[in-house]
């Protein structure tokens, strides 16, 4: 089954990635921007893991009864990237909470108007 997938599964990943990126760029609501960012990064993770997959391989936990494993290096990189991603999310959300404290809104347009009034 895997042979037929070819590069098709990369295309799905790209579509997901671009959806996320579009939300980040065009959405004016800050919470949604963060959600979009998560989506964008999440699909990059899938891209990495996809390239590590070996047809017929198993998880890279070495044991004598298997000979073919998936590539562990992308896994390690993505473990790091996931943690980095959640750190960014936490910081972004903390900023949103503070912005809401000071402005009373999390919509970029409303904030721009408030800034202009000052």
């Amino acid at each position, binding site marked *: 089954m895997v042979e037929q997938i070819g590069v098709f599964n990369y295309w799905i990943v790209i579509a997901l990635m671009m959806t996320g990126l579009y939300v980040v760029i065009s959405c004016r609501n800050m919470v949604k921007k963060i959600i979009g*960012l998560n989506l964008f990064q999440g699909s*990059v993770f899938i891209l990495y893991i996809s390239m590590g997959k070996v047809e017929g391989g198993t998880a890279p936990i070495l044991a004598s009864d298997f000979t073919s494993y998936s590539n562990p*290096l992308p896994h390690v990189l993505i473990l790091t990237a996931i943690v980095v991603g959640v750190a960014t999310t936490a910081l972004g959300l903390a900023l949103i909470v*503070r912005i809401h404290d000071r*402005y009373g809104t999390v919509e970029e347009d409303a904030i721009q108007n408030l800034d202009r009034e000052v």
Partner: protein
Amino acid sequence: MEAHLPVLVVLGPLMAAPLAVMFANARLAWWLAFLVSIACAWFAVNLLLLVQDGGAISYELGQWPAPWGIELKVDRLNAIVLTLVSAMSAIVLPFAAASVSDEVAPDRTYLFYTCWMLCLCGLLGITVTGDAFNVFVFLEVSSLSTYVLVSLSQRREALVAAFRYLIMGTVGATFILIGIGLIYMMTGTLNMADMAERIQATSHLRPVQAGIAFILVGIAVKMALFPVHMWLPGAYTHAPMAVTAFLAATATKVAVYLLVRFTFTIFGAELIFGTMQVGMPLALLGGAAALVGSLMALSHGTDVKRVLAYSSLAQIGYMAVGIGTGMVLAFAGALLHLVNHAIMKSALFMALGAARKQGRDDTLDPLAGAGRRMPITMTCFSIAGASLVGIPLTAGFLSKWYLVVGTFERGWWALAILTIITSLMAALYMGRILERIWMHEPDAGTPTSEGSWLMWLPLVVLAVANLYFGIETEFTATVTLEAARELLGGWKP
């Protein structure tokens, strides 16, 4: 000790930061940050001396040989950047000690210095590493701490600026991550030197070319190159003054370093300028950045901090022009400008901060007539301003001279003329500020006296550096020319 220098540069701030958090004491945190910056500067200078004599140094972390483990690699280029970053941190910190009390809540001050150390750690980590993925990790260390530093000023606009910076910065970093992933996919390695070797055989493959494009775009976001510069003016304007002075001197410079590192060491001049023809668009964007930055700076005549922020945009543009030409002379000019711009812009921001701190009211212009009340600070401001314009006998002259001559040599005379025109615009906006400082009568908002020595001493150091590097050009010129020649590796357009 000497053998461990590359890792010690990163380790110092990395270990000092948790110590500062543990003791939760602002004074102790400041001392830790200051001492660690001095130590890092000392390590960096030693590294610079080592690589001047003995070529590049490689350090294998965990004793794993290079493509399997992570390697730190120091050559002439990043030794210069290491020295610059850690020295700027050490110079700006005394200023921070005097100025943050007005801008950062007292119970947050120790966290402020912790983030400062983490930012320093990240920047040095990016610079010293020889591994492409490791760049991403330390990029995020420095970015996250930068967002916090920007947001810690108590103005609410700072929060929004930090948020915008966070969004753009993360998108940029993710672009770099995608790019590294694509190249890794085709080369199977993450080590920079190994990648450089293997990329030559695979450079015709589309994933590699797309990967290069993604990395370049991601770095452009990080260095605030037009048209992806939108985070910079807000972040610089609303951040605490010391942070602006530090970031202007380091963060974008490290991004420019990354551009140089990826372009020349990993991809190679031949691939970037020959096959992919990136040079021209890069230089054009640089030219556009110079123009837009200067125009914006001119149009923000009264808000000096914003003027200086937009001028940073233009300076980044010059560096992009210099790198884009692919000529030794212009490229050396760009490298030189990287260092020069750090010392001049940081001095300008600090002088402005000192004036604001001494000024009596936030709403009044603290600079009008300030020359008579704060002669030391304002003399330093003027020297750095002259350097920014590129007046002979200041550091800024040499780098711009190289840039203009190099761009002419390349035959891109329009860009060279644009560089000259935008420099004249800089003369205009700086002249306007200087006129206000020296010619106006002091009024109600003008500071009554010089600030504490903590504020003017760093300024004097930087002003003297601006003059020194403007008069004694031999050393800097040779080092940057050598570095440029080495990086270009004989490539000619």
